Protein backbone atom coordinates (compact mmCIF):
# COMPACT_ATOMS: atom_id res chain seq x y z
CA UNK A 1 0.00 0.00 0.00
CA UNK A 2 1.36 3.37 -0.95
CA UNK A 3 1.07 6.36 1.32
CA UNK A 4 -1.13 9.12 -0.10
CA UNK A 5 1.04 12.02 -1.07
CA UNK A 6 0.81 15.00 1.24
CA UNK A 7 -0.73 18.07 -0.33
CA UNK A 8 -0.82 21.26 1.68
CA UNK A 9 -4.23 22.88 2.19
CA UNK A 10 -2.97 25.98 0.37
CA UNK A 11 -2.01 23.95 -2.66
CA UNK A 12 -5.24 21.96 -2.57
CA UNK A 13 -7.40 25.09 -2.49
CA UNK A 14 -5.33 26.75 -5.16
CA UNK A 15 -5.67 23.74 -7.45
CA UNK A 16 -9.41 23.64 -6.91
CA UNK A 17 -9.77 27.37 -7.56
CA UNK A 18 -7.68 27.12 -10.74
CA UNK A 19 -9.79 24.24 -11.92
CA UNK A 20 -13.06 26.11 -11.28
CA UNK A 21 -11.79 29.33 -12.87
CA UNK A 22 -10.69 27.50 -16.01
CA UNK A 23 -14.11 25.90 -16.34
CA UNK A 24 -15.90 29.22 -15.93
CA UNK A 25 -13.64 30.99 -18.41
CA UNK A 26 -14.65 28.54 -21.13
CA UNK A 27 -18.29 29.74 -21.04
CA UNK A 28 -19.84 32.95 -22.23
CA UNK A 29 -20.45 36.01 -20.12
CA UNK A 30 -23.54 37.43 -18.45
CA UNK A 31 -24.18 41.03 -17.49
CA UNK A 32 -26.65 42.10 -14.80
CA UNK A 33 -27.23 45.84 -14.63
CA UNK A 34 -29.61 48.12 -12.81
CA UNK A 35 -31.40 50.82 -14.82
CA UNK A 36 -33.94 53.55 -14.13
CA UNK A 37 -37.03 51.32 -13.92
CA UNK A 38 -35.55 47.92 -13.11
CA UNK A 39 -32.71 45.44 -13.40
CA UNK A 40 -31.67 43.96 -16.74
CA UNK A 41 -30.11 40.53 -17.33
CA UNK A 42 -28.20 40.14 -20.58
CA UNK A 43 -26.56 36.83 -21.43
CA UNK A 44 -24.87 35.67 -24.57
CA UNK A 45 -26.89 32.53 -25.14
CA UNK A 46 -27.96 31.27 -28.55
CA UNK A 47 -30.34 28.71 -27.03
CA UNK A 48 -33.96 29.76 -26.66
CA UNK A 49 -34.84 27.06 -24.16
CA UNK A 50 -31.79 26.40 -22.01
CA UNK A 51 -31.83 29.48 -19.88
CA UNK A 52 -28.99 31.23 -18.09
CA UNK A 53 -31.36 33.75 -16.59
CA UNK A 54 -34.44 32.92 -14.57
CA UNK A 55 -37.09 34.14 -12.18
CA UNK A 56 -36.47 33.07 -8.59
CA UNK A 57 -39.28 34.91 -6.88
CA UNK A 58 -41.51 37.97 -7.15
CA UNK A 59 -38.78 40.58 -7.23
CA UNK A 60 -35.72 38.35 -7.44
CA UNK A 61 -33.90 37.09 -10.51
CA UNK A 62 -31.04 34.66 -11.10
CA UNK A 63 -28.23 34.55 -13.63
CA UNK A 64 -25.74 31.74 -13.98
CA UNK A 65 -22.49 31.37 -15.89
CA UNK A 66 -20.19 28.39 -16.23
CA UNK A 67 -21.28 24.77 -16.26
CA UNK A 68 -24.96 24.47 -17.17
CA UNK A 69 -25.90 21.43 -15.08
CA UNK A 70 -24.33 22.98 -12.02
CA UNK A 71 -25.92 26.41 -12.16
CA UNK A 72 -29.22 24.82 -13.20
CA UNK A 73 -29.00 22.73 -10.05
CA UNK A 74 -28.45 25.89 -8.01
CA UNK A 75 -31.28 27.69 -9.81
CA UNK A 76 -33.77 24.93 -9.00
CA UNK A 77 -32.56 24.77 -5.39
CA UNK A 78 -33.04 28.53 -5.12
CA UNK A 79 -36.60 28.35 -6.46
CA UNK A 80 -37.39 25.57 -3.98
CA UNK A 81 -35.88 27.59 -1.15
CA UNK A 82 -37.76 30.75 -2.14
CA UNK A 83 -41.10 29.03 -2.67
CA UNK A 84 -40.78 27.14 0.58
CA UNK A 85 -39.97 30.27 2.53
CA UNK A 86 -42.74 32.25 0.88
CA UNK A 87 -45.20 29.44 1.52
CA UNK A 88 -44.36 28.96 5.18
CA UNK A 89 -43.91 32.64 6.09
CA UNK A 90 -45.04 35.30 3.65
CA UNK A 91 -44.08 36.39 0.14
CA UNK A 92 -42.40 39.48 1.59
CA UNK A 93 -40.05 37.34 3.65
CA UNK A 94 -38.23 36.05 0.60
CA UNK A 95 -35.20 38.26 0.01
CA UNK A 96 -32.17 38.26 -2.25
CA UNK A 97 -29.98 38.56 0.82
CA UNK A 98 -31.46 35.37 2.25
CA UNK A 99 -30.97 33.57 -1.04
CA UNK A 100 -27.42 34.87 -1.43
CA UNK A 101 -26.62 33.62 2.07
CA UNK A 102 -28.05 30.21 1.29
CA UNK A 103 -26.06 30.05 -1.95
CA UNK A 104 -22.81 31.15 -0.35
CA UNK A 105 -23.08 28.44 2.30
CA UNK A 106 -23.82 25.85 -0.32
CA UNK A 107 -21.05 26.85 -2.69
CA UNK A 108 -18.57 27.09 0.19
CA UNK A 109 -19.43 23.60 1.37
CA UNK A 110 -19.20 22.17 -2.12
CA UNK A 111 -15.86 23.88 -2.75
CA UNK A 112 -14.20 22.42 0.32
CA UNK A 113 -15.95 19.11 0.75
CA UNK A 114 -17.00 17.64 -2.54
CA UNK A 115 -14.72 15.82 -4.90
CA UNK A 116 -14.86 18.65 -7.41
CA UNK A 117 -15.90 22.28 -6.95
CA UNK A 118 -18.72 23.79 -8.99
CA UNK A 119 -17.48 25.63 -12.08
CA UNK A 120 -20.02 28.40 -11.76
CA UNK A 121 -20.54 32.03 -11.03
CA UNK A 122 -24.04 33.19 -10.21
CA UNK A 123 -25.80 36.47 -9.57
CA UNK A 124 -28.90 37.02 -7.44
CA UNK A 125 -30.59 40.37 -7.96
CA UNK A 126 -33.56 41.93 -6.24
CA UNK A 127 -35.31 44.93 -7.67
CA UNK A 128 -36.21 47.60 -5.13
CA UNK A 129 -38.62 50.50 -5.23
CA UNK A 130 -35.82 52.75 -6.46
CA UNK A 131 -32.39 52.25 -7.97
CA UNK A 132 -30.79 52.95 -4.59
CA UNK A 133 -32.54 49.95 -3.09
CA UNK A 134 -31.68 47.49 -5.87
CA UNK A 135 -29.52 44.64 -4.64
CA UNK A 136 -27.16 42.63 -6.81
CA UNK A 137 -25.11 39.82 -5.29
CA UNK A 138 -22.35 38.03 -7.11
CA UNK A 139 -21.35 34.57 -5.92
CA UNK A 140 -18.36 32.61 -7.07
CA UNK A 141 -17.38 28.93 -7.13
CA UNK A 142 -15.75 29.03 -3.66
CA UNK A 143 -18.75 30.57 -1.92
CA UNK A 144 -17.46 34.11 -1.72
CA UNK A 145 -20.17 36.69 -2.09
CA UNK A 146 -20.02 40.37 -2.88
CA UNK A 147 -22.76 42.94 -3.12
CA UNK A 148 -22.24 44.92 -6.30
CA UNK A 149 -23.38 48.47 -6.90
CA UNK A 150 -25.21 48.99 -10.16
CA UNK A 151 -23.92 46.16 -12.32
CA UNK A 152 -22.00 42.91 -12.44
CA UNK A 153 -20.28 41.00 -15.22
CA UNK A 154 -19.41 37.36 -14.77
CA UNK A 155 -18.50 34.15 -16.53
CA UNK A 156 -16.23 33.80 -19.53
CA UNK A 157 -13.59 36.49 -19.67
CA UNK A 158 -15.42 38.91 -17.46
CA UNK A 159 -12.63 41.30 -16.43
CA UNK A 160 -12.52 43.41 -19.61
CA UNK A 161 -16.32 43.46 -19.65
CA UNK A 162 -16.47 44.69 -16.07
CA UNK A 163 -13.86 47.35 -16.83
CA UNK A 164 -15.79 48.58 -19.85
CA UNK A 165 -19.01 48.63 -17.86
CA UNK A 166 -17.37 50.63 -15.09
CA UNK A 167 -16.67 53.36 -17.64
CA UNK A 168 -20.00 53.31 -19.39
CA UNK A 169 -22.62 52.43 -16.81
CA UNK A 170 -24.36 55.28 -15.03
CA UNK A 171 -27.38 55.42 -12.75
CA UNK A 172 -30.74 56.45 -14.22
CA UNK A 173 -30.06 55.16 -17.72
CA UNK A 174 -33.16 54.02 -19.58
CA UNK A 175 -33.47 50.31 -20.37
CA UNK A 176 -32.66 50.66 -24.06
CA UNK A 177 -29.37 52.38 -23.30
CA UNK A 178 -28.33 49.87 -20.65
CA UNK A 179 -29.10 47.02 -23.03
CA UNK A 180 -27.04 48.60 -25.81
CA UNK A 181 -24.12 49.15 -23.44
CA UNK A 182 -24.36 45.55 -22.20
CA UNK A 183 -24.47 44.10 -25.70
CA UNK A 184 -21.55 46.22 -26.86
CA UNK A 185 -19.34 45.23 -23.94
CA UNK A 186 -20.29 41.58 -24.37
CA UNK A 187 -19.43 41.75 -28.07
CA UNK A 188 -16.12 43.51 -27.45
CA UNK A 189 -14.76 41.09 -24.85
CA UNK A 190 -12.02 40.07 -27.24
CA UNK A 191 -10.29 43.25 -28.31
CA UNK A 192 -8.72 41.89 -31.47
CA UNK A 193 -11.86 40.34 -32.75
CA UNK A 194 -14.98 42.30 -31.79
CA UNK A 195 -18.12 40.45 -32.81
CA UNK A 196 -21.60 41.49 -33.75
CA UNK A 197 -24.22 40.17 -31.34
CA UNK A 198 -27.74 40.05 -32.71
CA UNK A 199 -30.94 39.65 -30.69
CA UNK A 200 -30.94 35.93 -31.56
CA UNK A 201 -27.62 35.37 -29.78
CA UNK A 202 -28.89 36.95 -26.59
CA UNK A 203 -31.04 35.99 -23.68
CA UNK A 204 -32.52 39.12 -22.16
CA UNK A 205 -34.84 39.53 -19.21
CA UNK A 206 -35.77 42.28 -16.79
CA UNK A 207 -37.10 42.75 -13.30
CA UNK A 208 -39.44 45.68 -13.79
CA UNK A 209 -39.76 47.66 -10.55
CA UNK A 210 -43.07 49.24 -11.62
CA UNK A 211 -44.89 45.91 -11.56
CA UNK A 212 -46.80 44.99 -8.42
CA UNK A 213 -46.08 41.30 -7.92
CA UNK A 214 -44.06 39.06 -10.19
CA UNK A 215 -41.67 41.47 -11.87
CA UNK A 216 -39.62 39.11 -14.04
CA UNK A 217 -40.17 39.35 -17.80
CA UNK A 218 -38.31 37.81 -20.70
CA UNK A 219 -37.75 40.08 -23.64
CA UNK A 220 -37.63 39.00 -27.23
CA UNK A 221 -39.05 39.45 -30.67
CA UNK A 222 -39.70 42.88 -32.09
CA UNK A 223 -39.57 44.52 -28.66
CA UNK A 224 -35.96 43.46 -28.10
CA UNK A 225 -35.04 44.46 -31.66
CA UNK A 226 -36.56 47.87 -31.09
CA UNK A 227 -34.82 48.32 -27.75
CA UNK A 228 -31.45 47.44 -29.27
CA UNK A 229 -32.00 49.69 -32.27
CA UNK A 230 -30.61 53.12 -31.62
CA UNK A 231 -32.94 54.73 -34.16
CA UNK A 232 -36.05 53.39 -32.46
CA UNK A 233 -38.02 55.49 -30.00
CA UNK A 234 -38.66 52.48 -27.76
CA UNK A 235 -36.81 53.06 -24.52
CA UNK A 236 -38.52 50.75 -22.08
CA UNK A 237 -40.80 47.74 -21.76
CA UNK A 238 -44.54 48.34 -21.57
CA UNK A 239 -45.96 47.93 -18.08
CA UNK A 240 -48.76 45.80 -19.45
CA UNK A 241 -48.41 42.49 -21.21
CA UNK A 242 -49.70 40.85 -24.28
CA UNK A 243 -52.90 38.92 -23.62
CA UNK A 244 -51.29 35.54 -24.25
CA UNK A 245 -48.14 33.96 -22.86
CA UNK A 246 -44.94 33.99 -24.82
CA UNK A 247 -41.99 36.27 -25.15
CA UNK A 248 -42.68 39.76 -23.97
CA UNK A 249 -42.88 41.38 -27.35
CA UNK A 250 -45.45 44.13 -27.17
CA UNK A 251 -43.91 47.29 -28.48
CA UNK A 252 -44.12 50.37 -26.37
CA UNK A 253 -45.39 52.31 -29.34
CA UNK A 254 -48.14 49.81 -30.03
CA UNK A 255 -49.43 50.23 -26.56
CA UNK A 256 -49.14 53.98 -26.87
CA UNK A 257 -51.52 53.93 -29.78
CA UNK A 258 -54.14 52.28 -27.57
CA UNK A 259 -53.43 53.96 -24.26
CA UNK A 260 -51.27 57.07 -24.30
CA UNK A 261 -50.67 56.90 -20.54
CA UNK A 262 -49.08 53.48 -20.54
CA UNK A 263 -45.80 54.32 -22.20
CA UNK A 264 -42.47 55.86 -21.48
CA UNK A 265 -41.74 56.74 -25.06
CA UNK A 266 -41.75 60.49 -25.65
CA UNK A 267 -44.91 61.64 -27.39
CA UNK A 268 -43.21 63.51 -30.19
CA UNK A 269 -41.14 60.58 -31.43
CA UNK A 270 -43.95 58.07 -31.25
CA UNK A 271 -45.72 59.03 -34.42
CA UNK A 272 -42.57 58.95 -36.49
CA UNK A 273 -41.79 55.31 -35.77
CA UNK A 274 -43.28 53.06 -38.39
CA UNK A 275 -41.73 49.76 -37.35
CA UNK A 276 -44.34 49.09 -34.71
CA UNK A 277 -47.15 47.62 -36.76
CA UNK A 278 -45.00 46.05 -39.45
CA UNK A 279 -42.94 43.96 -37.09
CA UNK A 280 -45.56 42.80 -34.63
CA UNK A 281 -46.27 39.50 -36.31
CA UNK A 282 -44.91 37.31 -33.56
CA UNK A 283 -47.14 35.60 -31.03
CA UNK A 284 -50.43 37.04 -32.16
CA UNK A 285 -51.14 34.48 -34.86
CA UNK A 286 -50.30 30.94 -35.82
CA UNK A 287 -48.95 28.45 -33.31
CA UNK A 288 -49.35 29.05 -29.62
CA UNK A 289 -46.21 29.55 -27.63
CA UNK A 290 -46.88 28.72 -24.03
CA UNK A 291 -43.26 28.85 -22.99
CA UNK A 292 -41.73 31.73 -21.08
CA UNK A 293 -44.78 32.35 -19.04
CA UNK A 294 -43.61 35.41 -17.19
CA UNK A 295 -46.18 37.50 -18.94
CA UNK A 296 -48.97 37.87 -16.45
CA UNK A 297 -51.09 40.90 -16.41
CA UNK A 298 -51.63 42.99 -13.36
CA UNK A 299 -54.93 42.42 -11.64
Amino acid sequence: MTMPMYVSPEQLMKDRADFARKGIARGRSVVVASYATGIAFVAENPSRTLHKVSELYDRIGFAGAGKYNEFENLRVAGIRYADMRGYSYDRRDVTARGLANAYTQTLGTIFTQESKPYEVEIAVAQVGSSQQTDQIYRLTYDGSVTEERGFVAMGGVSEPIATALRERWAPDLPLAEVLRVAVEVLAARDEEDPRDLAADDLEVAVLDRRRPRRTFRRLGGPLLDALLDEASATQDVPTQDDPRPGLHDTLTQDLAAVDPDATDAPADTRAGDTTADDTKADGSDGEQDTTNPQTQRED
Partner: protein
Amino acid sequence: MSADQGHGLSLEFRTPRGSSFTEFLATRAPELLPGAGLRAGGEGVVEAPHGTTIVALSFAGGVLLAGDRRATMGTFIANRDMEKVFAADDYSAVGIAGSAGMAIEIIKLFQVELEHYEKIEGTLLSLEGKANRLAAMIRGNLANAMRGLSVLPVLVGYDLEDRRGRIFSYDVTGGCYEEQRHHSVGSGSLFARGALKKLWHDDMPEEQGLSVAIEALFDAADDDSATGGPDLGRRIWPTCAVVTEAGVRFVDDERLEELTQAVVAGRRGNPGGAR
Protein backbone atom coordinates in the same frame (compact mmCIF):
# COMPACT_ATOMS: atom_id res chain seq x y z
CA MET B 1 -37.72 20.75 10.48
CA SER B 2 -38.79 24.05 9.07
CA ALA B 3 -38.01 26.48 6.30
CA ASP B 4 -35.21 28.27 8.04
CA GLN B 5 -33.54 25.31 9.66
CA GLY B 6 -29.83 25.27 9.00
CA HIS B 7 -28.10 27.50 6.52
CA GLY B 8 -27.60 27.02 2.87
CA LEU B 9 -29.36 24.81 0.43
CA SER B 10 -28.92 21.39 1.94
CA LEU B 11 -28.76 18.36 -0.29
CA GLU B 12 -32.56 18.06 -0.24
CA PHE B 13 -32.84 21.32 -2.14
CA ARG B 14 -30.30 20.26 -4.70
CA THR B 15 -31.32 16.64 -5.27
CA PRO B 16 -32.69 16.32 -8.77
CA ARG B 17 -36.37 15.69 -8.39
CA GLY B 18 -39.61 16.52 -10.16
CA SER B 19 -41.02 19.97 -10.56
CA SER B 20 -43.79 19.55 -8.00
CA PHE B 21 -43.62 21.80 -4.96
CA THR B 22 -46.00 19.57 -3.01
CA GLU B 23 -43.74 16.56 -3.46
CA PHE B 24 -40.75 18.62 -2.39
CA LEU B 25 -42.63 19.84 0.67
CA ALA B 26 -43.62 16.28 1.57
CA THR B 27 -39.97 15.25 1.84
CA ARG B 28 -38.51 18.45 3.22
CA ALA B 29 -41.22 19.72 5.60
CA PRO B 30 -44.25 17.43 5.67
CA GLU B 31 -45.65 19.31 8.64
CA LEU B 32 -46.39 22.22 6.33
CA LEU B 33 -48.75 20.23 4.11
CA PRO B 34 -52.43 21.17 4.44
CA GLY B 35 -54.01 19.44 7.41
CA ALA B 36 -50.78 17.71 8.42
CA GLY B 37 -51.29 18.57 12.08
CA LEU B 38 -54.81 17.16 12.01
CA ARG B 39 -53.75 13.79 10.70
CA ALA B 40 -52.34 12.86 14.09
CA GLY B 41 -55.45 14.04 15.93
CA GLY B 42 -58.08 11.87 17.57
CA GLU B 43 -61.47 10.85 16.30
CA GLY B 44 -64.58 12.98 16.26
CA VAL B 45 -66.00 15.82 14.26
CA VAL B 46 -64.35 19.23 14.33
CA GLU B 47 -66.56 22.27 14.17
CA ALA B 48 -65.05 24.88 11.86
CA PRO B 49 -66.40 27.47 9.44
CA HIS B 50 -67.81 26.17 6.19
CA GLY B 51 -68.05 27.95 2.91
CA THR B 52 -71.09 27.39 0.80
CA THR B 53 -72.14 28.03 -2.78
CA ILE B 54 -69.96 28.37 -5.87
CA VAL B 55 -71.27 28.56 -9.42
CA ALA B 56 -69.28 28.20 -12.62
CA LEU B 57 -70.50 28.68 -16.15
CA SER B 58 -69.16 29.16 -19.63
CA PHE B 59 -69.97 32.10 -21.85
CA ALA B 60 -68.85 33.27 -25.27
CA GLY B 61 -65.07 33.59 -25.01
CA GLY B 62 -64.45 32.13 -21.58
CA VAL B 63 -65.67 30.86 -18.26
CA LEU B 64 -66.62 32.56 -15.04
CA LEU B 65 -66.72 31.57 -11.43
CA ALA B 66 -68.81 33.23 -8.72
CA GLY B 67 -69.17 32.58 -5.02
CA ASP B 68 -71.29 33.96 -2.21
CA ARG B 69 -69.52 35.49 0.79
CA ARG B 70 -70.96 33.67 3.79
CA ALA B 71 -69.13 31.22 6.06
CA THR B 72 -71.17 29.36 8.64
CA MET B 73 -70.43 27.29 11.71
CA GLY B 74 -73.56 25.33 12.47
CA THR B 75 -76.35 27.90 12.56
CA PHE B 76 -73.88 30.65 13.35
CA ILE B 77 -72.63 33.02 10.65
CA ALA B 78 -68.88 32.94 11.05
CA ASN B 79 -68.01 35.42 8.33
CA ARG B 80 -70.03 37.69 6.05
CA ASP B 81 -67.41 38.70 3.54
CA MET B 82 -65.25 35.65 3.03
CA GLU B 83 -63.55 35.14 -0.31
CA LYS B 84 -64.07 31.71 -1.80
CA VAL B 85 -62.95 32.39 -5.35
CA PHE B 86 -59.22 32.66 -6.03
CA ALA B 87 -56.97 33.06 -9.04
CA ALA B 88 -54.92 29.85 -9.18
CA ASP B 89 -52.53 31.28 -11.77
CA ASP B 90 -52.79 33.51 -14.82
CA TYR B 91 -55.21 31.36 -16.74
CA SER B 92 -57.24 29.57 -14.12
CA ALA B 93 -59.36 30.28 -11.07
CA VAL B 94 -60.63 28.03 -8.35
CA GLY B 95 -63.64 28.30 -6.06
CA ILE B 96 -64.08 26.29 -2.90
CA ALA B 97 -66.97 24.95 -0.86
CA GLY B 98 -66.58 23.06 2.39
CA SER B 99 -64.26 23.47 5.34
CA ALA B 100 -62.88 26.99 4.97
CA GLY B 101 -59.58 26.59 6.80
CA MET B 102 -58.63 23.43 4.93
CA ALA B 103 -59.74 24.89 1.63
CA ILE B 104 -57.66 28.03 1.99
CA GLU B 105 -54.59 25.98 2.84
CA ILE B 106 -55.11 23.73 -0.16
CA ILE B 107 -55.62 26.69 -2.48
CA LYS B 108 -52.48 28.38 -1.18
CA LEU B 109 -50.45 25.27 -1.83
CA PHE B 110 -52.06 24.85 -5.24
CA GLN B 111 -51.08 28.39 -6.21
CA VAL B 112 -47.47 27.84 -5.17
CA GLU B 113 -47.50 24.48 -6.94
CA LEU B 114 -48.47 26.04 -10.26
CA GLU B 115 -46.04 28.94 -9.96
CA HIS B 116 -43.25 26.58 -8.91
CA TYR B 117 -43.78 24.39 -11.96
CA GLU B 118 -43.81 27.49 -14.16
CA LYS B 119 -40.49 28.73 -12.79
CA ILE B 120 -38.69 25.38 -12.80
CA GLU B 121 -39.88 24.19 -16.19
CA GLY B 122 -40.05 27.60 -17.86
CA THR B 123 -43.44 26.71 -19.31
CA LEU B 124 -47.06 26.68 -18.20
CA LEU B 125 -48.72 23.50 -16.98
CA SER B 126 -51.54 22.39 -19.30
CA LEU B 127 -55.07 22.96 -18.00
CA GLU B 128 -55.57 19.20 -17.56
CA GLY B 129 -52.29 19.10 -15.68
CA LYS B 130 -53.58 21.74 -13.30
CA ALA B 131 -56.89 19.90 -12.88
CA ASN B 132 -55.05 16.66 -12.07
CA ARG B 133 -52.73 18.33 -9.55
CA LEU B 134 -55.76 19.71 -7.74
CA ALA B 135 -57.39 16.27 -7.80
CA ALA B 136 -54.35 14.79 -6.08
CA MET B 137 -54.54 17.42 -3.35
CA ILE B 138 -58.23 16.76 -2.72
CA ARG B 139 -57.53 13.02 -2.60
CA GLY B 140 -54.85 13.72 0.02
CA ASN B 141 -57.49 15.35 2.18
CA LEU B 142 -59.78 12.30 2.23
CA ALA B 143 -58.96 11.34 5.83
CA ASN B 144 -59.98 14.81 6.99
CA ALA B 145 -63.07 14.77 4.80
CA MET B 146 -64.22 11.71 6.78
CA ARG B 147 -64.10 13.87 9.90
CA GLY B 148 -66.24 16.56 8.39
CA LEU B 149 -63.40 18.68 7.00
CA SER B 150 -64.13 18.12 3.35
CA VAL B 151 -63.11 20.53 0.62
CA LEU B 152 -64.84 20.60 -2.74
CA PRO B 153 -63.37 22.86 -5.39
CA VAL B 154 -64.40 23.91 -8.87
CA LEU B 155 -61.60 24.74 -11.26
CA VAL B 156 -62.20 26.92 -14.29
CA GLY B 157 -59.53 27.83 -16.75
CA TYR B 158 -58.79 28.92 -20.26
CA ASP B 159 -57.25 26.13 -22.32
CA LEU B 160 -54.59 27.85 -24.41
CA GLU B 161 -54.28 24.88 -26.75
CA ASP B 162 -58.00 24.27 -27.35
CA ARG B 163 -58.71 27.98 -27.14
CA ARG B 164 -61.77 27.66 -24.94
CA GLY B 165 -62.80 27.94 -21.32
CA ARG B 166 -63.27 24.69 -19.40
CA ILE B 167 -64.84 23.72 -16.07
CA PHE B 168 -63.66 20.88 -13.80
CA SER B 169 -65.54 19.56 -10.79
CA TYR B 170 -64.34 17.18 -8.07
CA ASP B 171 -65.57 14.72 -5.49
CA VAL B 172 -64.03 14.16 -2.05
CA THR B 173 -62.09 11.12 -3.25
CA GLY B 174 -60.27 13.27 -5.78
CA GLY B 175 -62.38 12.29 -8.76
CA CYS B 176 -62.06 14.98 -11.41
CA TYR B 177 -64.83 15.50 -13.96
CA GLU B 178 -65.05 17.94 -16.80
CA GLU B 179 -68.38 19.77 -16.82
CA GLN B 180 -70.05 21.12 -19.90
CA ARG B 181 -71.78 24.50 -19.76
CA HIS B 182 -72.21 25.06 -16.03
CA HIS B 183 -71.76 23.61 -12.57
CA SER B 184 -72.32 24.44 -8.91
CA VAL B 185 -71.02 23.06 -5.60
CA GLY B 186 -71.82 23.64 -1.95
CA SER B 187 -74.89 23.48 0.25
CA GLY B 188 -76.91 25.81 -1.96
CA SER B 189 -75.84 24.12 -5.18
CA LEU B 190 -79.10 22.22 -5.60
CA PHE B 191 -80.96 25.48 -6.01
CA ALA B 192 -78.23 27.18 -7.98
CA ARG B 193 -78.14 24.27 -10.44
CA GLY B 194 -81.87 24.58 -11.02
CA ALA B 195 -81.48 28.26 -11.77
CA LEU B 196 -78.50 27.63 -14.07
CA LYS B 197 -80.42 25.03 -16.05
CA LYS B 198 -83.21 27.48 -16.75
CA LEU B 199 -81.17 30.61 -17.32
CA TRP B 200 -78.04 29.44 -19.15
CA HIS B 201 -77.82 29.77 -22.92
CA ASP B 202 -75.16 28.88 -25.38
CA ASP B 203 -72.83 31.73 -26.33
CA MET B 204 -74.07 34.29 -23.86
CA PRO B 205 -72.05 37.49 -23.73
CA GLU B 206 -69.97 37.99 -20.58
CA GLU B 207 -72.38 40.52 -19.09
CA GLN B 208 -75.30 38.14 -19.33
CA GLY B 209 -73.18 35.30 -17.94
CA LEU B 210 -72.45 37.38 -14.86
CA SER B 211 -76.15 38.16 -14.38
CA VAL B 212 -77.02 34.48 -14.64
CA ALA B 213 -74.33 33.56 -12.07
CA ILE B 214 -75.56 36.21 -9.65
CA GLU B 215 -79.15 35.11 -10.12
CA ALA B 216 -78.18 31.48 -9.46
CA LEU B 217 -76.49 32.57 -6.23
CA PHE B 218 -79.61 34.58 -5.36
CA ASP B 219 -81.72 31.44 -5.78
CA ALA B 220 -79.28 29.43 -3.67
CA ALA B 221 -79.40 32.02 -0.89
CA ASP B 222 -83.17 32.12 -1.13
CA ASP B 223 -83.56 28.49 -0.11
CA ASP B 224 -80.30 27.65 1.67
CA SER B 225 -79.65 29.35 4.99
CA ALA B 226 -75.90 28.76 4.75
CA THR B 227 -75.57 30.75 1.52
CA GLY B 228 -75.35 34.51 1.83
CA GLY B 229 -77.68 36.56 -0.35
CA PRO B 230 -76.88 39.97 -1.79
CA ASP B 231 -76.14 42.17 1.24
CA LEU B 232 -77.43 45.54 0.06
CA GLY B 233 -77.08 47.17 3.47
CA ARG B 234 -73.40 46.29 3.90
CA ARG B 235 -72.72 46.45 0.17
CA ILE B 236 -71.17 43.00 0.06
CA TRP B 237 -71.36 41.47 -3.41
CA PRO B 238 -70.50 37.99 -4.61
CA THR B 239 -66.91 37.42 -5.79
CA CYS B 240 -66.76 36.89 -9.56
CA ALA B 241 -63.68 35.83 -11.52
CA VAL B 242 -63.75 35.85 -15.31
CA VAL B 243 -61.24 33.75 -17.26
CA THR B 244 -60.70 34.48 -20.93
CA GLU B 245 -57.91 34.31 -23.47
CA ALA B 246 -56.49 37.38 -21.73
CA GLY B 247 -56.26 35.61 -18.38
CA VAL B 248 -58.01 35.86 -15.03
CA ARG B 249 -59.75 39.05 -14.01
CA PHE B 250 -61.90 39.81 -10.99
CA VAL B 251 -65.03 41.84 -11.66
CA ASP B 252 -64.84 45.12 -9.77
CA ASP B 253 -67.28 46.13 -7.05
CA GLU B 254 -69.06 48.89 -8.99
CA ARG B 255 -70.00 46.55 -11.77
CA LEU B 256 -71.05 43.83 -9.32
CA GLU B 257 -73.19 46.29 -7.43
CA GLU B 258 -74.91 47.33 -10.65
CA LEU B 259 -75.56 43.73 -11.72
CA THR B 260 -76.71 42.63 -8.26
CA GLN B 261 -79.05 45.61 -7.88
CA ALA B 262 -80.53 44.78 -11.28
CA VAL B 263 -81.15 41.15 -10.24
CA VAL B 264 -82.70 42.24 -6.94
CA ALA B 265 -84.88 44.83 -8.69
CA GLY B 266 -85.99 42.22 -11.22
CA ARG B 267 -87.10 39.95 -8.40
CA ARG B 268 -89.05 42.65 -6.56
CA GLY B 269 -92.70 41.65 -6.61
CA ASN B 270 -91.60 38.36 -8.16
CA PRO B 271 -89.48 36.74 -5.43
CA GLY B 272 -89.60 33.30 -7.00
CA GLY B 273 -88.16 34.65 -10.21
CA ALA B 274 -90.92 33.10 -12.37
CA ARG B 275 -90.47 33.92 -16.04
